[in-house]
């Protein structure tokens, strides 16, 4: 038995290579049918709502089609104002998040690896506290601390940093894991670079992809975030989309298509970036936060 095993294994391995080469033509046809069945079903489930929305957004009257709703949307100053606000908030979130996380993750990789398990736990915590519960806690805290007012403009990016924390952390962690932080730091130090120069000119260029990955994911999350911004009474893009949906169903479809295009753009940028340079980490792991 044991003498025959290696030969048998070699045979099965070469068979599996053949299988892969000849594609789906060889072997069980049934597997091939079910493969297509599930893939087509999933494609239909994903695409039919998008297609219906597209049809809705092009519907300008009985048996009439056109880009009227898009034109109306693009000429609405509110559209641009809220989009700009959301984009500004997203950029602030990215900047605060990276400024907070990059030095922390760097230092943990360099000097405090014993903190890694703790960081793993902290980075799941934002999933444990649903956004709506976070708002309850924050508004309770505001009453305790009146100096932190809810109409303070920076509050939204500051809270979004928490929402984006799991993605930023995972992305940066993977990025730092892929490079040899210790050797790079020691090399920089032996050339006489102080710590901040090492971080800025040696480490940062090396984790550029990971940073951008985290940034685009944050961007996609913040641009669509409704729960916190509406409950804290900010007039962001998602709040605008909701408002239009209540008054204009067709225009809302155009806005839904535009939102999808924005998300698509951010994720494609992320995908292209991650392909360009190894694994960016956390790519595609975008568990929805905007729900």
């Amino acid at each position, binding site marked *: 038995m044991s003498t025959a095993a290696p030969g048998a294994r070699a045979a099965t391995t070469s068979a599996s290579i053949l299988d892969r080469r000849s594609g789906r033509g060889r072997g069980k046809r049934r597997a091939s049918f079910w493969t*297509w069945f599930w893939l087509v079903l999933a494609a239909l489930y994903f695409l039919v709502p998008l297609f219906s929305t597209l049809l809705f957004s092009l519907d300008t009257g009985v048996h009439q089609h056109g880009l009227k709703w898009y034109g109306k949307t693009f000429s609405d100053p509110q559209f641009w104002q809220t989009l700009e606000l959301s984009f500004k908030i997203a950029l602030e979130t990215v900047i605060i998040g990276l400024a907070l996380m990059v030095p922390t993750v760097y230092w943990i990789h360099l000097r405090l690896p014993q903190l890694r398990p703790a960081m793993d736990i902290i980075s799941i915590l934002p999933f444990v506290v649903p956004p709506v519960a976070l708002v309850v806690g924050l508004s309770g805290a505001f009453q305790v601390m009146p100096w932190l007012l809810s109409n303070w403009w920076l509050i939204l990016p500051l809270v979004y940093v928490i929402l984006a924390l799991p993605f930023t952390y995972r992305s940066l962690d993977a990025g730092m894991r892929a490079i040899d932080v210790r050797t790079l730091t020691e090399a920089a130090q032996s050339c006489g670079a102080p710590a901040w120069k090492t971080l800025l000119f040696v480490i940062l260029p090396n984790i550029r992809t990971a940073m951008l990955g985290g940034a685009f994911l944050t961007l996609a999350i913040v641009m669509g975030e409704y729960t916190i911004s509406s409950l804290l009474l900010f007039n962001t893009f998602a709040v605008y989309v909701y408002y239009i949906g209540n008054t204009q169903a067709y225009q809302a479809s155009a806005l839904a298509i535009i939102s999808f295009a924005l998300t698509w753009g951010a994720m494609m940028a992320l995908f292209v970036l991650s392909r360009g340079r190894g694994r960016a980490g956390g790519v595609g792991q975008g568990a929805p936060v*905007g729900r």
Partner: protein
Amino acid sequence: MTDEVVSQQSNDDLMALETGAPVLTPEQVSRPRRSRRGRRGLLVWIPVIPFFAYTAFFMAVPVVVLIVKTFQAPGGGFTLDQVKALFSGQYRAAFVASIQVSVTSALIGTVFGLFVAYAAVHGRGPRWIQPVLTTFCGVASNFAGIPLAFAFVATLGSTGVVTLLLDHAGLDIYAHGFTLYSLIGLSLVYVYFQLPLMILVIAPSLEGLRKEWREAAENLGATQRQYWWHIGLPVLLPSLAGALVLLFGNAFSAYATPYALTGGGISLVPILIGSVLSGNVVITNPRLGDSLAFGMIVIVGITVLLYSLLQRRSAKWLR
């Protein structure tokens, strides 16, 4: 030398984590290190203080405030009244409805996602399928909230494209009692963000199902059913259960999608909390917002805990 010390230490920590012992004991923190800079002891902790202060302030403080208010009587003493209130009347109903929608959409998402992911990973289809599916799932799992609700109104709403198509084909689904605004309709919408998440989460585990195992089973004369029953499913079970739990928590905390779909008219826990916060409804005790949120955190907390435990278990076989 330093490397050795550090890796030794992180191994210790991993073991400590697995045995449930505290990750950082006081003497570990102040343990003198061999490297020259390590002797500065506590100074090495300074760079990570901003991060921990930030997460404490924006995550821990709100949660602590919320818990304190849940157990605080109006006069200031300790009370369980607000927790008890969660088990009665409309609050209980909201929890039941939330759990129903979450379980339904999580089950559909898990089963559907498993088959789709399996087809993509092991289905011997064209090679481009998997990267395309992964990218699309990344997009679709982020395409949630308000726009998603409108997309489904355009699809399965009373004048939606699919509704009208089915009507033309002779099937009036609204006459048969279907509405998008019911628990079933809502679950169907949730699957749109559940399915991609499931595919992203389960695909690595499916990739870990070795071809050799299947071939070995087949060589020994196992049928397809026997292979799945004795090998495939047992190996996948922790990941599957973990994914189910994750999807449950994911649906449970959804707010924007049900809110946009029903205009806040459906009684789910997050929606109820939202209306307490914005003062839309007259609720006998406005502090119930705190206890409702507390109830949510407890439920989602349990699911995430279960998820990470199952994740650790499944890592044993599938790496």
